[in-house]
């Protein structure tokens, strides 16, 4: 799997910090050190597992001895999935330096043999016993066929065949679920590093001592303890959805579900129109055995059709009224049936048995009725719709469900906003409950992912639509990057890179010594002592090179001959050779940026304007726009949009983090430019972006460029607009009014002042 720059930035920061700490760690007593601690804070869908996997591979490359990693996940179900992904699946490529095993399969020879790193995958469920001897014995003692030393002790001493203690790293996905007992058990293993991943910075009490030491003795604060992934990077990358749409229903369940199903059909059609074969799925969250509005349990002795349990009623409404095929519906909760009145044969019930999860996943169900507590850890990127039943709609539960539907199918945004949206249908008793939920969701989104837009369905009685369809069919040429001219300079840089395969000097690390505990003396009176080790585990030149490029502009790798034998050289992370390779990688990225060009191609599936999401409480109507109304305009944008409307040209608002994007070739963080407006004339399509004063200096350089046409068709042209009177040297006349239109004239920046919005709109549309 290819890492995105923000993911590499996070994993590198974790590895750098870990290495730096381990060079001079805090001590507890004797040979015990205070473990390095880091919390990876990232929203659902940002690729936490990927970042963690890359972090441990990078840490490995900086350690003197091959480490042992205990990789913990929460659920028993998820742990097998994690194991499959790390050992042979999608993350295996990232963990090339490790052997991956289930914890139970760890044998003394695996620990003694330090030829490669060792990842042991386990679930914390199995550690959660106060008394180790009475717990699940398989975990705390190795099996009969292995040596009689317990696995626990094995991991605690973790000596390789040379008597060196191997570094031990505990990685915990969903770190906020660690209990105190679990934490204490982990700390008993004397780990060298603890790396947790969670969106919340909730720390188990047992860890407080460790963190306090880091805070007090090293002066660490949240900045040092947490590696945070910016949610804006995650949203822009397409890994998560862009919009959340909430609707509150003070109506019977049937009405809310009817509306959800009809919106799902629209989403399915949109997916089919785009040629996407995934079909959006819906989840239904409800109580299990309680009837609506009652605290009494549903009567199991009644026949199926008389049962009042919510999952049954939802299932019957889907099947009997909405004619959904029962084969498409799964009910995943602990629903009880009396043997005399079993469920119909077509009722797919998963009541939580061990093999249920695999069966459930294999079933590919489109409608999933479940009870949150049963399936934590399950999420499916094709889930775009969620119905939340009354009594489940506490703010807390709603925010939990959001995590479940946030992942974006196919990890990319589509032109149709309906496919980039998480849709919620929340049934409540009172409007106030919905308001409270809304406030909470708003707060959570603002804190965790401010780049995800939130909109509300106003009319929730059957006619409400959160989207405005396009009223006219319009397209824009796709913009792409052409690196034809970058190939030769990149080849020159790569060809000049030194072959370190036979070098024994420059591939050796410098500085960054890490001490390891080693048995000194003969077996009888061996004594543990700290020994300084200068070298770190070796990695290929290729890995260093690719990593360095991916951190800046991943696509530049695709122009390099990284299969050359010289990239097979094995070297240490802190060697001169590695430095030289990283320097060459930087040059490659510079050459890529400097010599590539943005081009437009009408044959490359032009982008067709699709529907836009609107917040129905704040819409402005327009006459000549492709959509009837827009809602997300600020004052400046609205003035300009009204002026555009009066030019009588066909135009549209390109939604924020928009649907249509132009790739950017620069060192900035954003890789795509989403202009605010698109306007069509006979021979041109104008991409117009309104700019705040503080952005124009940077953006005039980054976003105003000529886009070379490579096929016949209307030409895409970029214009920027600022408020007030500006000169091309970026000086603004104090107190000036009107607008300035920025364009390129004969390759030079040109600033034209217009006294009002109408003139500015016309100036934007002047034929270049």
């Amino acid at each position, binding site marked *: 799997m290819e890492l995105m720059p923000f993911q590499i930035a996070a994993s590198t920061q974790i590895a750098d910090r870990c290495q730096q700490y381990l060079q001079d760690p805090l001590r507890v007593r004797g040979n015990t050190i205070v473990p390095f601690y880091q919390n990876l804070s990232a929203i659902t869908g940002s690729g936490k597992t990927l970042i963690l996997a890359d972090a441990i591979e990078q840490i490995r490359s900086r350690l003197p001895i091959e480490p042992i990693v205990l990789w913990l996940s929460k659920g028993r179900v998820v742990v097998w999935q994690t194991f499959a992904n790390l050992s042979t699946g999608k993350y295996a490529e990232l963990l090339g330096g490790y052997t991956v095993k289930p914890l139970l399969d760890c044998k003394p020879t695996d620990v003694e043999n330090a030829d490669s790193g060792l990842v042991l995958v386990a679930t914390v469920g199995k550690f959660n016993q106060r008394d180790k001897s009475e717990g699940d014995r398989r975990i705390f003692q190795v099996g009969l066929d292995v040596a009689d030393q317990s696995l626990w002790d094995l991991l605690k001493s973790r000596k390789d065949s040379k008597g060196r203690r191997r570094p031990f790293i505990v990685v915990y996905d969903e770190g906020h679920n660690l209990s105190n007992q679990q934490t204490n058990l982990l700390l008993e293993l004397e780990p060298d590093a603890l790396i947790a991943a969670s969106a919340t910075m909730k720390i188990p009490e047992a860890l407080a001592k460790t963190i306090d030491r880091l805070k007090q003795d090293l002066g660490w604060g949240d900045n040092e303890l947490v590696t945070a992934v910016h949610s804006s990077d995650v949203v822009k990358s397409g890994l998560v959805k862009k919009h959340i749409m909430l609707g509150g229903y003070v109506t019977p369940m049937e009405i809310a579900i009817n509306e959800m199903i009809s919106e799902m059909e629209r989403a399915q059609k949109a997916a089919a129109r785009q040629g996407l074969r995934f079909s959006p799925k819906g989840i239904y969250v409800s109580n299990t055995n309680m009837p609506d509005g009652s605290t009494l349990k549903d009567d199991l002795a009644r026949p199926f059709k008389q049962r009042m349990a919510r999952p049954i009623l939802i299932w019957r409404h889907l099947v009997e009224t909405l004619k959904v095929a029962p084969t498409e519906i799964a009910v995943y909760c602990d629903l009880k049936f009396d043997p005399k009145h079993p469920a119909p044969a077509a009722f797919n019930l998963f009541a939580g048995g061990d093999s249920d999860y695999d069966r459930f996943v294999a079933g590919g169900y489109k409608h999933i009725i479940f009870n949150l507590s049963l399936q934590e850890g399950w999420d499916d990127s094709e889930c775009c719709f969620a119905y939340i039943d009354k009594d489940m709609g506490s703010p807390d539960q709603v925010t939990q469900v959001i995590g479940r539907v946030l992942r974006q199918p196919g990890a990319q945004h589509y032109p149709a906003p309906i496919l980039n949206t998480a849709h919620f249908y929340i049934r409540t008793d009172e409007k106030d409950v919905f308001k409270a939920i809304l406030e909470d969701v708003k707060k959570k989104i603002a804190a965790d992912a401010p780049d995800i837009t939130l909109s509300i369905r106003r009319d929730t009685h059957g006619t409400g639509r959160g989207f405005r369809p396009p009223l006219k069919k319009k397209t824009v040429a796709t913009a792409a990057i052409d690196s034809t001219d970058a190939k030769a300079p990149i080849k020159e840089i790569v060809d000049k890179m030194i072959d370190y395969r036979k070098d024994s000097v420059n591939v050796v690390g410098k500085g960054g010594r890490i001490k390891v505990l080693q048995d000194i003396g003969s077996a009888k009176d061996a004594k543990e002592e700290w020994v300084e080790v200068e070298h770190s585990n070796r990695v290929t030149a290729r890995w260093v090179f690719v990593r360095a490029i991916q951190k800046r502009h991943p696509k530049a790798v*695709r122009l390099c001959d990284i299969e050359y034998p010289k990239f097979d050289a094995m070297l240490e992370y802190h060697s001169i050779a590695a430095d030289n390779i990283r320097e060459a990688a930087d040059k490659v990225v510079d050459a890529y940026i400097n010599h590539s060009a943005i081009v437009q191609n009408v044959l490359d599936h032009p982008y067709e304007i699709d529907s836009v999401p609107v917040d129905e409480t704040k819409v402005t109507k327009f006459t000549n726009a492709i959509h009837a109304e827009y809602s997300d305009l600020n004052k400046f944008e609205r003035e300009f949009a009204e002026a555009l409307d009066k030019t009588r040209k066909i135009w549209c608002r390109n939604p924020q983090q928009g649907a249509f994007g132009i790739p950017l070739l620069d060192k900035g963080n954003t890789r795509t430019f989403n202009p605010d407006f698109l306007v069509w004339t006979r021979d041109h399509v104008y991409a117009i972006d309104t700019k705040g004063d503080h952005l124009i200096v940077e953006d005039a350089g980054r976003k105003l460029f000529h886009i070379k046409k490579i096929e016949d068709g209307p030409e895409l042209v970029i214009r920027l607009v600022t408020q007030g009177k500006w000169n091309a040297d970026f000086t603004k006349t104090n107190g000036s009014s009107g607008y300035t239109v920025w364009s390129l004239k004969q390759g030079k920046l040109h600033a034209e002042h217009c006294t009002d919005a109408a003139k500015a709109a016309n100036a934007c549309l002047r034929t270049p």
Partner: protein
Amino acid sequence: MRRDELIDVVITSHWENGRRNTPNLIRVDDPTYSYLVGKNERGEGYFIIWPGDGPVGQLDAKTYKVVLEEGKKAGIKPPYHIYARYEVYQSNNVCFYKIPDKILAHLGLSESNDRYNEATEE
């Protein structure tokens, strides 16, 4: 590796990120296509830019035009999955796989720890 061997590797070892239980690709064996070699169950096309007997080609404006034409003829919509030596033309409608690196990864070699070439080779 010969072209047909490479097609075999791509068809049998390709798996998609995040999609479990996905069957292998369906081979497209139609000599009228220069680059199209397979489809997945979602109807997305797989292309290898390897014209005739020469070396593996690159994805540039010229070869991409052929991909677009073949995609249109075969009724395939983006994203196009394209295997080639270099991705000179970079469109968001393309999922790119670099030859030979991606092929070696399909075959189980790791970027961080494995040599891609025989040790004796210079």
